[in-house]
């Protein structure tokens, strides 16, 4: 009696599911459109859901970003919004070869978690030509093998040196490894008596990539090198890092965490280190800054002790690209340089799509081939066009960095104190394998 009802319950549930699914197997789209451009996945002849010109087809690009609970949410949401604005501008200017580009339909939350990333990636994978954003080094590494085997071109919202070795990754700006080298060279210029450096960062590719650069730099410049890995979290998690720093007293600390962790560590070192006579110089990789810090109790310590190393100029910089971005986005409610990053990252994808369309091949494979053959990208001045030399591979990596400092009067809380430069250490460095492997 009881048993029977259970079986039937399960049976009817399955039946409902079958009806509900109502899917049918087979049939990827694809073919050749009237202009003779070959397409396969993620390109349709039907217009985009928010089409400006209903007669155009649609290219779908996916986004995997840290939108709700992860440590980079304050930067990730602006990145995503900025990319939507970038492609709206592209579509208004006529789109790409008879197609408009949609970057808002397949936006998924990866929670800055490699496990969640693989799951949401699989959800959108059948519908997209490429990824306009995959946020985080480790989350991106989690899907890297599948991106490669499926020929899906992806724009990382991260700057890991691992990406230099991957044809399917379309990265922009100097990687964390080189950025850390430039940061140390700059610090040595300011304070030549620095003789020890500690890298503090997230475990995995993000923190380790910068730490690999710090280690190389320490070897070249005869500095004592230490590495501390720490996870996301506030004072309860960072306490151990702070006490280790105060005990070991490195002259320079390179931070490769989220903004909350950077602010927590700097503030606690400022508070607790004062009595021990310890006040190091802090330089963070670009994702360690969020202007909201200036409105927090960490503002004082950060302004006094912290600099940001970044791959391109902040929101207020004077280039045609920055100008176009400010015009397209107006005045966002909470402004930070996530907007700038999202905008810059979009240029190479635009160049790759245009080149693929010119090659009459907008298939996944065609897009990857087009991206790989790019020798320059028009960043509208936000980066030099040689930063888009993807044909050069790992050896031709772009190595320039800017240094900024907190400034309450600047729109995104930082002003540039040192414009694009390549330090001597980075100049003499050739990327032969991913920096985290050298750690």
């Amino acid at each position, binding site marked *: *009696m009881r*048993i*029977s*009802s*259970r*079986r*039937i*319950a*399960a*049976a*009817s*549930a*399955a*039946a409902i*599911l*079958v009806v509900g*699914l109502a*899917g*049918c*197997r*087979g049939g990827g789209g694809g073919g050749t459109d009237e202009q003779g451009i070959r397409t396969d996945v993620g390109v349709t002849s039907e217009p985009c859901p928010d089409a400006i010109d209903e007669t155009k087809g649609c290219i779908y690009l996916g986004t995997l*970003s840290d*939108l*709700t609970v992860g440590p980079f949410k304050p930067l990730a*949401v602006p990145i*995503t*919004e900025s990319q939507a604005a970038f492609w709206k501008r592209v579509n208004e200017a006529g789109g790409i070869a008879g197609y408009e580009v949609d970057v*808002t*339909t397949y*936006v*998924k*939350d990866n*929670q*800055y*978690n*490699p*496990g*969640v*990333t*693989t*799951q949401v990636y*699989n*959800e959108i*994978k*059948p519908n997209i030509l490429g990824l306009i954003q995959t946020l985080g080094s*480790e989350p991106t590494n*989690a899907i890297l093998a*599948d991106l490669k085997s499926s020929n899906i071109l992806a724009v990382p919202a991260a700057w890991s040196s691992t990406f230099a070795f991957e044809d399917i990754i379309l990265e922009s700006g100097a990687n964390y490894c080189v950025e850390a080298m430039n940061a140390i060279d700059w610090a040595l210029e300011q304070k030549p008596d620095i003789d020890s450096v500690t890298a503090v960062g*997230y*475990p*995995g*590719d993000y923190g380790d990539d910068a730490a690999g650069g710090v280690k190389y730099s320490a070897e070249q410049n005869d500095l004592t090198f230490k590495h501390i890995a720490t*996870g*996301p979290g506030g004072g309860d998690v960072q306490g151990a890092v702070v006490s280790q720093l105060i005990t070991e007293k490195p002259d320079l600390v390179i931070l490769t965490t989220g903004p909350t962790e950077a602010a927590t560590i700097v503030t606690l070192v400022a508070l607790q280190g004062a009595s021990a006579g310890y006040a190091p110089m802090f330089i963070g990789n670009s994702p360690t800054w969020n202007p909201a810090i200036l409105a927090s109790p960490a503002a004082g310590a950060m302004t006094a002790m912290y600099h940001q190393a970044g791959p391109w100029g902040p929101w207020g910089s004077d280039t045609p690209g920055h100008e176009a971005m400010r015009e397209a986005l107006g005045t966002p409610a909470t402004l930070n340089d996530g907007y700038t990053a999202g905008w810059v990252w979009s240029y190479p994808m635009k160049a790759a799509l245009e080149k693929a369309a010119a090659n009459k091949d907008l298939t996944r494979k065609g897009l990857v081939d087009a991206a790989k053959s790019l020798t320059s990208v028009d960043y509208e001045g936000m980066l030099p066009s040689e930063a888009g030399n993807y044909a050069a591979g790992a050896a031709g990596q772009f190595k320039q960095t800017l240094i900024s400092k907190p400034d309450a009067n600047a729109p995104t809380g930082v002003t540039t104190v040192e414009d694009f430069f390549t330090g001597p250490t980075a100049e003499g460095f050739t990327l032969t394998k991913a920096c985290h492997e050298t750690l």
Partner: protein
Amino acid sequence: MSTKLLGRPMLYTSYESEMALLNTGTKKAGLGLLLAVGVGLPFLVSDPQLRTLALALITAVGVIGLGLVTGYAGQVSLGHAFFLGVGACTAAALGGDPDSDLIGFGVTEVLIWLPAAGLVAAVAGALVAPLAVRLRGLYLAIVTLGLVFVGGYVFNEWTELTGGQGVGRNMPQPTLFGYELGVSDEFFTKEQKLYWLMLVVLVVFAFAARNLVRSRVGRAFSAIRDRDIAAGIMGVNLFRYKMVAFAVSSFYAGCCGALLFVADGRFEPNTSFNLDTSIKFIAMLLIGGVGTISGAILGAFFIIYLPVLTGYLPDLIPGLSTNAAQTPNTHQVELVLYGALLIIFLIFEPRGLFGIWLRLRNYWKAWPFSY
């Protein structure tokens, strides 16, 4: 014997026929149909849908396991995520690449690493069981809660095993007698093969659980759940049966954990095996129906399909977005629904989805004289 009494399905002339696994014709037909649909589904639905189905199937194994210890034996466990983690790590270590930086033995044969994952988790469960003999109710819940945190720390810090917090590690792709189940070939896709694997595992585990609970062991579980002191007086060995309950439940959890991340390929220890996961499993059990096997399966399907169902909402509700960067979005609706459903089920239908099914069935059984 009962088969001779056609048309009188409620009449049993022996305990044996009454206690049979499939004691009516409807039941046999229903199960046969269900299995036929289950086996045939990969020819009908697309790969992404199979992926979700496979996830629901394997999750159901874990929920059945939790149902055994919590629903049948009455030992509230918030530590289920820990046992999932033990299973996942065992499988990842056994099947892992021996040349990588992480612990790996290169045993990709699923018939080896799947039972091994279950066994290691079962041993962990048996080690916890003595606590359950000393404690019950809320106190036991708190102790098993501690297990999640202690385990979580070990998972985060033991980077050679788990890859560490924020990084995680890849799951091995299963092979069966040398046949690769985790890669598409000219006959079947990866999703089809993994779906069948999960289906077989669920069927085996569901039948095993069903058999266990209608046996002497299962009756001992129920006796302990209803009143452990009374059960002890009746001669039920509390220590032994609580230990069996935890060990079997953990075995289920271990096997579930081992296969849970195979389709997507990667787990991250800090978020995959935390308190949220434990609570999610309890929610599946409560929504599906405590103390039933098919209820556990229904609950697992329901919660796994919740995001899929909320995905259809934007078509019905204008202004609701599927874009997680906009508010309100389906992700938020899903979280709200998840909480609301738990409360609604606990208040209005404590027997869960299974209880709703019972009422529906009884209505039609008496039709047209239903009341």
